[in-house]
């Protein structure tokens, strides 16, 4: 057992967020201005992301498996997903800074829960042992249950949290039963050792198949794949919107990260994964129904947040398709397509959810499509980011979402065979999806609100504007010039690279500075025009 500096560096991003979360609890106790906590937590998360970026480029690759190495990986897959998770969580916490103040439910727990849950997500994407995987998954989930239930006086929040909690812990129990079967079949909990035992043909086949079935079911619950999606729309709708954003982006990225490891390492043997039996055909079927059902169900929604929930379900189908393609292509372009998709999906979703937050103010929230009518004319600076966000989710070129979908579908077509029909289904279902995404834009710009109907009034918040500017920058950056980011996720994740870290530092710097300037301008403007509109101190609870 050695605690040398190299080993500590490997878990540096985790330690940053963990100690940040602990410090946050102290700061929360003494801070008077709770909205600034959101900035603090965003800074902590961005520090974790920078640490991961540094490790991606110069982290030690050869460390003897000791205390940490046998439980947590330190490869570029983990470091890249750290960037997605920390970035998504930082933007969600900025959104919360504006949203919670506007709705007078400002309490510091939100950021603490968010930080610890992000810690679980970061541990999850580097879990290479069933034990670390289970604990990380629970750390992630328990935090999110708390975030969903955050608005204590809302029956909808309690109900969404209850549904998410009950189904989530049921799924955890199923996953755990699968884990115990896998342990029984192989006698090991380390994914690599499990792979060796399976490859040597020494594992009990019945237990192995059963455990695979149970574990995939448990994980499919967490990514809300159809038919295990029932909790998702309710939880997204009931939760405060920043928490929905967090669930949509971070939970999905983290669980897909661990799925890559479990499926490709533990269940990666030919006997469990081939074109006719094993998990790839099962996952392909799951991908097909998830894409089709998610898009069809989103069509009939009247509530914008529920629509975005079903949209995130259908995106899970695309990602599952990418996973199967990645297996067929032995990692390679399939895996990089999945990772790029996760990054583009994260920034697009933050933009869409964030604009939904910005459109509404206290008592005048945007809930249904009708609430959005005419916003584009009265407040174009709110409607434009909203339009960019939904267009990117739809896959409109040249935005981030377009290249995400393009590369995943390309990988599926490249994989050939049965994957071709899956690619066709993907194209058709995203054409169906265009209807409900465009409907948002139609309501924003082309409808007039009905007489006397409740209409959303945009809020003024520097925090939300900053998050939108940052997410918007990346949506355009990944869409117009995705080159450098494709290299970041390119095949040979652990080979030598001629990438230059300065590109990504510049991007991050530009995004943060632009966000800060936009936030400052918004604050100045609202300060000049309506001083009286300052929110009154929140009622003591």
């Amino acid at each position, binding site marked *: 057992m050695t605690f040398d500096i190299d080993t500590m560096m490997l878990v540096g991003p985790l330690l940053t967020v963990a100690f940040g979360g602990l410090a946050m609890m102290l700061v929360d106790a003494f801070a008077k201005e709770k909205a600034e906590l959101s900035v603090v937590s965003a800074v902590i998360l961005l520090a974790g992301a920078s640490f991961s970026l540094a490790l991606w480029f110069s982290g030690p690759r050869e460390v003897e498996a000791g205390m940490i190495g046998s439980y947590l990986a330190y490869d570029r897959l983990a470091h890249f997903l750290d960037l997605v998770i920390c970035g998504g969580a930082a933007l969600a916490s900025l959104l919360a800074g504006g949203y919670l103040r506007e709705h007078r439910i400002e309490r510091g727990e939100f950021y603490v829960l968010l930080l610890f849950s992000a810690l679980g997500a970061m541990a999850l994407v580097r879990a290479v042992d*069933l*034990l670390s995987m*289970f*604990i990380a998954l*629970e750390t992630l989930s*328990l935090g999110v*249950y*708390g975030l969903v*239930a955050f608005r*204590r*006086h*809302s*029956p*909808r929040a*309690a*109900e*969404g*949290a*209850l*549904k998410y*909690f*009950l189904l989530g*812990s*049921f799924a*955890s*129990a199923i996953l*755990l*039963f699968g*884990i*115990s*079967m896998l*342990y*029984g079949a192989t*006698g*090991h*909990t380390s994914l690599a050792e499990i792979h060796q035992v399976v490859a040597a043909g*020494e594992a009990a086949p019945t237990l192995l198949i059963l455990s695979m079935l149970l574990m995939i079911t448990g994980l499919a619950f967490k990514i809300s794949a159809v038919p295990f999606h029932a909790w998702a*729309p*309710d939880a997204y*709708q*009931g939760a405060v919107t920043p928490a929905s954003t967090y669930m949509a982006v971070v939970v999905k990225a983290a669980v897909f990260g661990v799925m890559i490891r479990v499926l490709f390492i533990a269940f990666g043997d030919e006997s469990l994964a081939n074109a006719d039996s094993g998990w790839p055909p099962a996952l392909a079927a799951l991908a097909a129904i998830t894409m089709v059902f998610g898009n069809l*169900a989103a069509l*009939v*929604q*009247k*509530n914008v947040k*529920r629509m975005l929930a079903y949209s995130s379900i259908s995106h899970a189908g695309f990602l599952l398709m990418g996973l199967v393609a990645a297996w067929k292509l032995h990692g390679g372009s399939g895996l990089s397509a999945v990772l790029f998709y996760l990054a583009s999906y994260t920034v697009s979703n933050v933009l869409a959810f964030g604009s939904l937050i910005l459109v509404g103010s206290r008592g005048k929230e945007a809930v249904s499509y009708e609430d959005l009518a005419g916003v584009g004319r009265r407040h174009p600076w709110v409607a434009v980011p909203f339009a960019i966000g939904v267009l990117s989710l739809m896959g409109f070129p040249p935005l981030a979402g377009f290249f995400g979908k393009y590369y995943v579908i390309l990988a599926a077509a490249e994989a050939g065979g049965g994957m071709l029909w899956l690619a066709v289904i993907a194209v058709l279902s995203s054409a169906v999806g265009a209807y409900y995404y465009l409907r948002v834009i139609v309501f924003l710009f082309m409808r007039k609100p009905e007489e006397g109907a409740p209409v959303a009034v945009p809020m003024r918040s520097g925090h939300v504007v900053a998050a939108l500017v940052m997410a918007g920058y990346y949506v355009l950056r990944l869409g117009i010039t995705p080159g450098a980011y494709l290299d970041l996720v390119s095949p040979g994740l652990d080979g030598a690279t001629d990438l230059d870290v300065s590109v990504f530092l510049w991007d991050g710097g530009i995004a943060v500075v632009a966000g800060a300037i936009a936030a400052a301008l918004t604050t100045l403007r609202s300060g000049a025009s309506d001083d009286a509109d300052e929110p009154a101190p929140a009622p003591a609870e």
Partner: protein
Amino acid sequence: MEIGLGTYLALASVLFGIGAVGFLTRRNILLQLMSIEVMLNSVNLTLVAFNRWTPGEPGAWNHHGQVFAFFVIAVAAAEAAVGLAILISLYRLKSSVESDSADLLKH
């Protein structure tokens, strides 16, 4: 009758089944939480039994299964705490612990 791995696995499967059926059929949230606990405990039993009867020579044994069971117990406690907190918050608003009373969110 000899008590071996099969006996423990049979018991664990029955417990898991009872928990799953209880979770799906009961409408009282407290009972649903208890059903989940039963399921988790059946997992613990499986883990420990598998550890006891791990194939291979004695020198190659590990204790991962037994250690895992302790972690499951700890996590189950944390999960129960969060679950009861959510239950209390629902009870305050609805004065009911039936999961059917949570029926606001529909499409």
